[in-house]
């Protein structure tokens, strides 16, 4: 029999994303969300204590010598199930973190609760790209590539024009496109390699060196500039190093002033919850939104199994869609099972159908 707390927990299982502010370790974010959820879960009204029949010796009121023990059946509450004895129902909940963000960066951080962690594992394994906005400044080079680090060198930047920056970015993009082909495990002499290359599906499976699949400058006002990158298998330190190297290529120096992740897989800034919304109610709503959008996506994807390369203005790349397809079927089944679980089997959580693929 599921308690109201357990029912609420079922509604909380899934994936959602938060906006991690900069200057904060990701673990603090995860811990505070877990604390908030636990507070609400344990505040649900507890069920009334079950009663049990115990044979207790009644204290005799008459002043007659007790010949034997007289026991009478009384219904007493089961004290061992009292929350003050057994502790709160939920001591901790599994809140997992997707692709991590270091303390200097900010942006979308995907978290999973309960059964959502299994989907998080799949997210980790599929080839999903992430979008970042990098803010840089010319003129300084520091030891940790950020504007707060120790200054190593200062140099002039008056010679830098947007045209030169575009040329350097084009060169970097070319090198990264080549890296995409080099790290893919497909035999280049096969027809399959050619077809995948035409559709843009060639890429590394699993771990590889960081690769920037897209790079462009969206704002240029010397000494400041903002780049938008789309990358695979990256770390934020690598992205800061990219800003530093762009400065070197331009025969000057550059530091990174800020990194913001604007998209992780299918979670964008629009869906991210800010600090004041890290409450159970908002999280439940975000998870509900995630589940419904998953259903919609599966329904729209099934008639066209292999969509042709579309030039959508949307940044969620088709190549990432294609890569997700393989895992999407797996996700779908997980989501289906979670949905089924919630609506039909909410009262008997232990009879869950095992629909693992």
């Amino acid at each position, binding site marked *: 029999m599921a308690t109201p707390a357990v029912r609420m927990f079922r509604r909380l299982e899934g994936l959602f994303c938060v906006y991690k502010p900069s200057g904060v370790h990701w673990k603090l974010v995860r811990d505070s969300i877990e604390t908030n959820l636990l507070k609400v879960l344990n505040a649900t009204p507890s069920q009334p204590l079950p009663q049990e029949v115990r044979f207790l010796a009644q204290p005799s009121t008459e002043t007659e010598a007790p010949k034997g023990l007289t026991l009478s059946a009384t219904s007493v509450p089961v004290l061992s199930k009292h929350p003050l004895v057994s502790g709160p129902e939920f001591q901790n909940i599994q809140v997992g973190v997707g692709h991590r963000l270091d303390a200097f960066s900010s942006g979308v951080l995907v978290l999973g609760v309960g059964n959502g962690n299994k989907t998080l594992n799949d997210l980790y394994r599929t080839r999903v790209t992430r979008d970042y906005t990098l*803010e840089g400044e010319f003129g300084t080079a520091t030891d940790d590539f950020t504007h707060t680090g120790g200054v190593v060198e200062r*140099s002039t930047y008056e*010679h830098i024009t947007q045209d030169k920056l575009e*040329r350097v970015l084009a060169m970097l993009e070319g090198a990264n*496109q080549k890296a995409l082909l080099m790290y893919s495990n497909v035999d280049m002499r096969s027809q399959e390699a*050619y*077809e995948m290359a035409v559709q843009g599906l060639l890429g590394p499976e699993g771990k590889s060196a960081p690769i920037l699949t897209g790079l*462009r400058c969206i704002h240029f006002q010397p000494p400041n500039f903002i780049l938008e990158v789309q990358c695979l298998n990256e770390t934020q330190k690598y992205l800061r190093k990219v800003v530093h190297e762009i400065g070197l290529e331009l025969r000057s120096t550059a530091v990174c002033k800020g990194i913001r992740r604007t998209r992780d897989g299918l979670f964008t800034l629009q869906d991210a919850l800010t600090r004041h919304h890290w409450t159970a109610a908002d999280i439940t709503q975000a998870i509900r939104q995630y589940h419904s959008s998953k259903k919609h996506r599966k329904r729209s994807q099934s008639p066209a199994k292999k969509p042709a390369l579309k*030039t959508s203005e949307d940044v969620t790349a088709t190549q990432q869609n294609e890569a997700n397809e393989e895992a999407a079927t797996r996700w779908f089944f997980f989501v289906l099972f979670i949905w089924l679980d919630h609506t039909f089997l909410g009262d008997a959580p232990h009879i869950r159908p095992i629909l693992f693929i």
Partner: protein
Amino acid sequence: MGSGHCICSYATLSKASRPQEKSSAGPVFQYVGQNKKPTPKVFVWGFSFTGALGIPSFVVPDSGRKKPRKYQLTPYRLETAEQISSAACGYGFSLIASSTKDASKLWGMGLNKDSQLGFQRTQHSRHQSYDYVLEPSPVALPLVNPLQTRVLQVACGRAHSLVLTDREGVFSMGNNSYGQCGRRIVEDEVYSGSHIIHNIEGFAGRVVQVACGQDHSLFLTETGKVLACGWGADGQTGLGHHNISSSPVEVGGDLSGVEVQQISTYGDCSLAVSRDGQLFGWGNSEYRQLASVTEATQINSPRHLPLKGCGKVVQAACGGTQVAVLNDKGEVFVWGYGILGKGPNLSESSTPEVIPSTLFGRSQFNPSVAVTRIRCGLSHFAAVTDRGELFVWGKNVRGCLGIGKRDDQYFPWRVTVPGQVVDVACGVDHMVAMAKSLL
């Protein structure tokens, strides 16, 4: 899903860079001034034992410990005295030229057994010429005004080369057994160690482009007329017969009255592109290069090639067995026989096949990448995009593709050249690329 450039209302840009204590003691370095121009560079790669790469240490190592490098599989910088504006690769030799007015404006390296690089005096004897030139050595052109004339373009064939100047016409050197040098054929002429560099006469107007096939030569005048000389057994001279022609004769056929803007040849097939975007071809068609107009194996007179779906042709490039054209939208069409660039399954086609632009770097972030230059070697292709990237595909003969491996490449592959590529010349087993630095 949000697009990347719109920042949400609740997420603000990070505050303006906080004023760091600018330590006045620290120096500020200036590496480059505002007026710095990009540095021109030349890169070579491919088979080096003929000396065609111009790097002697590959053939004769500097120290006893080093080994000779037979194949240079990635681009290697060739140091040149002047900025090179034109380069051409022949069958085992290369010519590079600068558009300067100085006395040395043309250098040659590689095979010189037919004096295709002119007379290269040896150190030991002034009557002998080197058979293999390992370093870019100046070619002494017999110019009337050596300090006024500029070299516009060079072209190399199997054993002959052509040099186009701006004021003194065309010079030819090398083998003339089939009249490809545009001069009278001499019986039993010995070409090795020959001093003859011939200034070709017989042009009605000024020549603006030259092209060398295997054993024939094509010339394009400023009025749009094409002249040809040399071997004609496959009809590659386009003069209506299969005989040798030892002086340039104007080609007719479908080209009469047409203004041609570009000619191209490297094997036994020749192509011409007219000013209004039409393509004309003649010569060898054994590999279905001209199959759109004929089933015969040769055509000896230019025929107009109706290309469906190609649009307006701006450039054509012709190899040994394959043909590529570029249209005004920057799309590349290929046909013929061999590795055409659409995977191993397409090994021959008689109609133009477009190569998808995603293979040349077109993506969501760069939707407008277009190819600006297309060149053909004997069995491979090279394409230069407007972003300065070089893509190659085809048979990797002795490492001529420059991709770092000796495998054939069945679809366009980027060559990592340190700089932006301006132009490229393709030979049989080596390539020369002219690039400029990024900044």
